């Protein structure tokens, strides 16, 4: 039962991460990808700049996975990979991948993990607007 926790400046590959949680006992691999959207509060976004308190973020993500395993006992492998640095529109900032014997728990766990990550883990994004200024105005 692998827990994969990674915070990286490299481009994230959903395919590689899904492969990393694959298992002959898994009937399902459930995944979530967070991608940079081109708008925020009616302003046009060029990129999101992510920063992290890395050692605490890794610790926090690991404890989310541990908690998820207590809630759902059908989980096999869990991977959470988050990018830091620039994440331009269309690019993936975070991937959560879970393999499970049956699909129900995998899907629920992925949903819960991204919701919890977004409120607990010390990672921050800053919008960089196409208009340059910090609030989207010149």
């Amino acid at each position, binding site marked *: 039962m692998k827990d994969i926790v990674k915070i990286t400046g490299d481009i994230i590959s959903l395919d590689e991460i899904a492969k990393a949680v694959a298992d002959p006992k898994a009937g399902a691999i459930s995944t979530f990808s967070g991608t940079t959207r081109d708008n925020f509060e009616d302003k046009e976004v060029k990129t999101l700049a992510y920063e992290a*308190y890395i050692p*605490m973020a890794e610790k926090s993500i690991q404890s989310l996975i541990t908690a998820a395993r207590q809630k759902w006992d059908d989980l096999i492998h869990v991977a959470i990979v988050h990018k830091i640095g620039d994440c331009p529109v269309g690019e993936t900032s975070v991937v959560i991948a879970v393999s499970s014997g049956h699909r129900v728990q995998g899907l629920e766990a992925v949903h819960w993990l991204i919701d919890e990550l977004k409120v607990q883990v010390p990672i921050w*994004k800053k919008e960089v607007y196409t208009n340059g200024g910090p609030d989207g105005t010149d």
Partner: protein
Amino acid sequence: FKVLYFASAKDASKTDGDKFEWSDNINAEALTKLLLERHPDLAPILKVSMFAVNMEYMDQDLSWTVQPGDEVAIIPPVSGG
């Protein structure tokens, strides 16, 4: 002991972190005062931020005081994912 600044706290203090001289009885309120003395611009951010001590969120523990060698971090509202 050291204090690390992230996100809006880093923008306001214009640095990644600071070292402070340890003394007895620095609780959350005293720490806040120390931080504001060094970086007054941190005021609005500290109002909405949490402290993390040695990588654990510090939960309004009124009996907590900084220990020598602690790593304290200012955690503004998170926005990962």
